[in-house]
């Protein structure tokens, strides 16, 4: 067979490229640090009850607001519950709500972004105006409004956060789709009279998955941010859960009296989790956007 094999170059194979990405991730100290932190909290969320020295829900009115000690590493709160135990099991609520909400927002946002970017014209114009309207109000306030209107519960929390993230993700995906749409392979598809669904989901979607993945991890960080904030305001995860934001909601008034331990440790827990997720997102972005 007379072929152009002589032009074949030893360019990296697809699998090699994937392995190269993994290798880069393994050599990124920030990514690894993020991975360790997030893995720790995921473990706490899954089996936290088995790891803790005290019952996180049991009040002990005899040892209220005790400072950290050998018995209570992080001290006790205003009704004598062990702060350490509550911090460990508190990972569960937020690590249920935030990923599910992000997933919801990513799926919905990606679909809307694909449709707006692919059809452009009036469809795009209308969708983007609605997106703009949502983005004119901060996520926390939209979330608050939605939760007051629907009544707070874990399900509505997931729904509301997923919903307010949808426009943000839609906008990112739309921008990526608009860039893809200018590529000639999309015209080649039109010359075969492919239908819109095939073009959007089979031709274009695989090419925007990189940005979608990065966006997912970035949004996950903000979903944790939003969940914690709404819980702190009292509209998110409801009592008697050991949620960090909710704990802070109950305890932060003691801060002015100098009682810092029931407040500091849940706050640090939130901070480490969001920073961990952010480091993961940063590592992925470094690898995918190079």
């Amino acid at each position, binding site marked *: *067979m*007379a*072929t*152009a*094999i*002589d*032009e*074949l*170059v030893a*360019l*990296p*194979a*697809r699998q090699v*490229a994937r392995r190269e990405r993994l290798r880069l991730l393994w050599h990124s100290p920030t990514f690894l640090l993020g991975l360790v932190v997030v893995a720790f909290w995921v473990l706490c969320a899954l089996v936290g009850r088995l790891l803790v020295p005290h019952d996180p829900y049991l009040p002990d009115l005899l040892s209220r607001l005790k400072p950290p000690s050998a018995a209570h590493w992080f001290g006790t709160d205003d009704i004598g519950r062990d702060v350490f135990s509550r911090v460990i099991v508190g990972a569960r609520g937020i690590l249920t709500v935030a990923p599910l909400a992000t997933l919801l927002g990513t799926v919905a946002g990606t679909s809307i972004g694909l449709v707006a970017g692919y059809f452009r014209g009036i469809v795009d114009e209308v969708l983007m105006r609605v997106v703009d309207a949502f983005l004119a109000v901060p996520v926390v306030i939209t979330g608050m409004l939605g939760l007051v209107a629907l009544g707070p519960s874990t399900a509505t929390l997931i729904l509301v956060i997923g919903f307010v993230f949808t426009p943000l993700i839609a906008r990112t995906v739309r921008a990526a789709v608009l860039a893809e749409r200018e*590529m*000639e*392979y999309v*015209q*080649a598809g*039109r*010359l*075969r*009279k*492919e239908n819109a669904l095939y073009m959007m989901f089979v*031709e274009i979607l*695989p*090419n925007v998955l990189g940005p979608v993945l990065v966006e997912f991890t970035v949004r996950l960080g903000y979903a944790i941010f939003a969940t914690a904030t709404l819980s702190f305001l009292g509209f998110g995860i409801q009592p008697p859960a050991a949620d960090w934001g909710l704990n802070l909601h109950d305890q932060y008034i003691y801060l002015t009296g100098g009682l810092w331990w029931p407040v500091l440790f849940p706050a640090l827990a939130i901070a480490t989790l969001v920073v961990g997720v952010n480091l993961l997102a940063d590592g992925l972005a470094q690898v995918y956007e190079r």
Partner: protein
Amino acid sequence: MDSSKASNAGIARSVPPASVGEVRDSVLEVDDFRLAFQVRGRDRNAIRGVSFSVGRNDSYGLVGESGCGKSTVALAIVKYLPRNAHIQSGAIRVNGADVFQMGNAELRRLRATTVSMVYQNPGAALNPAIRVGDQVAETFRVSGSHRAEALARARAMLVKVQISDPDGVMRRYPHQLSGGMQQRVVIAMALAHNPALLILDEPTTGLDATVEAEVLDLIVALRKEFGISILLISHNLGLVARMCRRIGVLYAGRLVEEGSSDAVLSDPRHPYTVGLLRAVPRWGTSKSHGLLDTIPGLPPAIGANIPGCVFADRCGLVQDICQQQEPQLFELDGGRTSRCFFHEKAHLLPTVEAGPKIASRALAVGAPLVRVEHLSKTFRQDGHPVKGVVDVSLSIRPGEALGLVGESGSGKTTLARVLLGLTPPDAGATIDIEGKALRPQISDRPDDQIRALQMVFQNPGGSLNRRHSVRRIIGRALTRLIGLAGRAREQRILELAQSVRLDRALLDLWPVQLSGGLKQRVAIARAFAGEPRLVIADEPTSALDVSVQAAILNLLVKLQADKGVTYLFISHDLGVVRYLSDRIAVLYLGRLMEVGDAETVFQGPHHPYTEALLSAAPILKGETRERIRLHGEIPNASAPPSGCVFHTRCPRFIGDICVKEEPPLAEQEPGHFIRCHHPIEELRRMQRPAPAPATVPGEPSR
């Protein structure tokens, strides 16, 4: 012009013997320069030893394909290199001073006064946020002029680069100027301090042919006036040969051959140069003269470890010694050098594509395949109508290749998109294919018409989905267009792959793993999947290097001979169009200006615009004809000139009639249509080859 001056003197003139090492009074000396880029802690060789020098008042051209390191050499001369660049050895001396040893202050002085540069993309080279006048004046303020003086000198400089409205241009921002104007401004800045050396890095790539010719003339004129040495860097051998006295051929970061322009072009002494010259269609030749020669394989990647000759892997004359030992620099007669053990017999390089001559299969008589009548396309731009295509009527004969030629804004791509149904035409147009009406929107077209019209795109990277394998890309076209599935489809994929000379092993790869030429083969296979009647190829080779372009042109020619398909071939490169096309149509501002057999259109008499286009093309071999130059810019399609749209730039302008009345596209000879008020005999008389002395060497004729 230097090349013509050289041709007067012949090869014997090559004085002084400018061999490397001992050059008297040279402005620039590059001495065994080697550079690597550090990628993840490892040095990847990019420049593997380059030596050359540019004498005072001399012109030197550096030629090479993409990735050969020519721009890196240029930027190294002013020591403006990326942070990961690592100079391994060698020296670059400007007026005797080593650039790499210079401190910051010295380097700034070098850049400000001694070496200046003109870049490929003038639009990006100018700061979008600063007025043109201030940007030019800044070059004078560097040397200490105060503001008013700097502005006055800037204005004088703009006059020097033949900007007719210097005050207006000074006040404007770069984005308000056309590409040709922007490049003049960059040239004005470059010449501000009367530098000893002017580096031109692909200065006209991206400009339209007629504008390019004007800019090149300007450079030649200024060079004479200022007495500057130039280093011209380009991928275009013809351009370099026309502009420079000496040429160096760069390949994989190595200078493989050097000598005077005539000598290198007429008697190349390195197999790479030989191959490169053979890969370009000779001016005026067509596919009936035989296939083009190609260079097999690809240049070595940056960082590749090459013990022997850099070209050994692709060379038809390769011997064992070439793989093992690096050829030394052979100094030849007439101050030439070559890095080839077999430089004596370089011209014996065997041809790769020995094939039968291809005769045109176009049927001159009989029903046309595609008939277009009164096709116009109006866009709306900021609420104003802009006519992209105006009343085009055209027939494409079955089995022919129709070449569509025109500069930016000519409407050639719009015409293709209308035919393909991607953009609907204005009401009143009729398009037939095989006698049946073609619906304006692709979504309304029946399957057989979808199959009949396919396209090969300009950018092979973008036209293939990078997340689909080659097999899937070709297979999907087969499924959609002719409903194949399973084994039948697999069988057909293999056949198609073979017909475009694509190894079956490549079918499982993804586009990122293929070179540009291979990607274009995949795109061609896809276009041919549904046995199309008409394939529209929009600049299919303009993103490719010369050697790869030849292989793709050959493939298109062979496919046409095998399958009897019809081509509509769009290109700005007249040589390529002439090579591939049986007939040529010339568009200007959306109007057909001339249609005729390729040979007739080339030979003339032609439309004055075609005449100017042909005259502007940089060609390899000098020829004695009068140079026609167009002045001014291509008018904007939203406000086309009255009467004949070409009258504002026409070198054969008659008078009132051209301004007031649009001439018809008249059949002035059998099969040869020209839209001009001049009768064809008048054009013939005016366009007769001028007697040789009419071209004053080195003077752009006006």
